[in-house]
């Protein structure tokens, strides 16, 4: 099995999806703290936001590849035929679509991180920069929680 095949395998794709998401969540939580407390340097904020955006894009691609190639044929039928088909109909459908919000939101925070501390205060956007960073982390956590429920439904879906 070559390296490409290993990367494209189901457990690795799920691991990359979750791992990159955890990095993105952590980075935006840290960034929210920096905005809130007016700490860190401009360079540090830019690097944090850029790493966060890159991690969330990587999570989106890994999760999207798994969803398109494997989920529909292997996982969805198991959940739909199990005792909790609502997990696909509600949880998975919501999860896959709110993921579309995350990249534009995180790019906007990346652009905010280009400002100096004094500009953040002069423009009066420190509070909203903090809230938007928290929102990205919260959406990431919500998506992670939904992913856990989907995996559990596939694993235990036939057991009452």
């Amino acid at each position, binding site marked *: 099995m070559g390296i490409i095949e290993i990367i494209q395998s189901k457990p690795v794709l799920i691991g990359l999806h979750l791992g990159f998401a955890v990095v993105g969540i952590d980075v935006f939580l840290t960034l929210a703290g920096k905005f809130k407390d007016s700490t860190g340097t401009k360079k540090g904020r830019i690097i944090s936001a850029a790493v966060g955006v890159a991690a969330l894009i990587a999570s*989106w691609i890994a999760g999207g590849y798994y969803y398109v190639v494997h989920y529909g044929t292997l996982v969805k039928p198991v959940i739909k035929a199990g005792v909790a088909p609502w997990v696909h109909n*509600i949880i998975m*459908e919501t999860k896959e*679509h709110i993921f579309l*919000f995350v*990249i534009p939101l995180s*790019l906007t925070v990346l652009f905010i991180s280009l400002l100096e501390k004094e*500009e953040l205060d002069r423009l009066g956007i420190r509070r909203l920069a903090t809230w*938007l960073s928290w929102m990205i982390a919260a*959406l990431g956590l919500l998506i992670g929680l939904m992913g856990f429920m989907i995996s559990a439904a596939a694993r235990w879906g036939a057991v009452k």
Partner: protein
Amino acid sequence: MNKPKLIISSAYAASVSIAFAVIITIWAEFFAPLKGWLAAFSGHHWVSKSIFAMLVYVVVGVVFYIFPQKNSDTGLNRGLGVLFTFGILGTVALALFFTGHHFHVF
């Protein structure tokens, strides 16, 4: 580079992109030909929605940035507030829609 203008352009573009994702998702659930067209466009309806949502973000962002804006500094708070509100409303709207759809409320 005008950083406040870049931020406000991105904020409104992201808001429009979120609204687009919500509207096309709900519309496609009720109008099968649209879902079929989305699936045929890229091979999967979700991939097509991803492509179009990002295209909407980029195009609207560029248009906002190119066109002149009055007081882009003072409009920043409003633009970011709109984005924050759209993020919450979009998440709630999709969750409520798919819940209602599952229970055949609509």
